[in-house]
């Protein structure tokens, strides 16, 4: 290993370790690496830049505080940060009692294909494929899936807001997510 490695070249896991250790340079590199994704997700859910920044800041504080609970066998650091951000954004929505059932909800979290993706080429392909799959789902399935995945709505809540039977809401969520799973497992086999 003779030469030094710039912090920006370290793995996501190593930077998270450094952040949790209270390390200045690793913490800076970690925030730089994830800030646009964390803020972007918070903004997509909340559609309020000020509130989104509050949520994004809190997400990084949580990462520092709970970094030791991150388990690489359960997913990537990026996915772990996304879940933290999503849960904080949902909490913020509930505090404001915000209504997210308007048609803009879908557009906010599922951008067009040419929206920027800050990631490796492989991940960028996956992101584009997931967005395409979401757009090609039947509207009612995509809507139920987005409401559950991004806004934390339970099947019961979706059933009430969409005025559909509970079983139908559960089926829409299930079919939507299975479609995404099929896409990802097929991509993995082809790749």
């Amino acid at each position, binding site marked *: 290993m003779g030469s030094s*490695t710039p912090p920006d070249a370290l793995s996501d896991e190593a930077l998270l370790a450094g952040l949790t250790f209270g390390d200045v340079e690793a913490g*800076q590199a970690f925030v730089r690496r994830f800030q646009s994704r964390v803020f972007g997700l918070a903004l997509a859910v909340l559609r309020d830049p000020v509130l989104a920044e509050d949520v994004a800041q809190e997400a990084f504080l949580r990462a520092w505080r709970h970094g030791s609970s991150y388990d690489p066998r359960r997913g990537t650091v990026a996915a772990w940060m996304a879940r933290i951000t999503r849960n904080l954004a949902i909490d913020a929505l509930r505090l404001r009692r915000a209504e997210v059932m308007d048609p803009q909800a879908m557009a906010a979290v599922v951008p067009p294909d040419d929206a920027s993706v800050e990631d490796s080429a492989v991940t960028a392909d996956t992101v584009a494929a997931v967005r395409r799959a979401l757009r090609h789902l039947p509207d009612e399935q995509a809507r139920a899936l987005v409401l559950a*995945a991004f806004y934390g709505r339970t099947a019961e809540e979706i059933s009430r807001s969409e005025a559909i039977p509970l079983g139908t809401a559960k089926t829409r969520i299930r079919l939507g997510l299975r479609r995404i799973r099929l896409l990802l497992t097929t991509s993995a086999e082809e790749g």
Partner: protein
Amino acid sequence: MDCSEAGTMLDELALDVLPGDRRTALLDHLEGCRGCRRLLEELSESADALLLAAPVAEPPAGFEDRVLGRIPAVPAEGAARRTRAGSTWARADRRPARIRMFAAAAAAAALLAVGGVAGARLGGSGDDREFQTAQLISTGGSDIGDVSTYAGRPAWFFMRLEGALPNGTYQCVLDTDDGTVPIGSLWAHDGRGAWGEHVRVDPGHVTVARLVDSHGTTVATARIH
């Protein structure tokens, strides 16, 4: 609960929207059902992929400084409590006298450990300490991960496994100018695992980091210097 009933709830669990009462019953079923656990893993990966497909957006100017200004340059308290409760290795009394390891750490899950410098925040300026990364090479010559070190005060090591090793627990060992030091355990599952720890040994004195299996056989090596 049978697999058919579980299958109607797995998606909601993966999306973290399953109400508590049904969640408990489903978790009981998952405890004893490998097939449903496997499906849940795939669905959870799909749920993660959805979140990662959200648009990225640059935060307002100064965001990085504001975040770092809120994060103390010390280890998290929760991690310290969890570490003390679950610490299973690397205690001072087990170590060779000439190589002292920092005593604060090592969770049972063996991922990240703690220790640090009080009174500062991450928003402060960095210093001239060095990161280094070396490839972790299996005995068969494959690249199966990496080892990162940070030569600060205290220094830390981080080992990441992303390659084919049998499931199980492996000892992380440092070969130094003064001898061999076991510094922790890495739990590998499906070829993935990670472990990190603060150490008081100077990374400049470490020549090799190794992973050793339960039979004492070295299965992977990273050459540090």
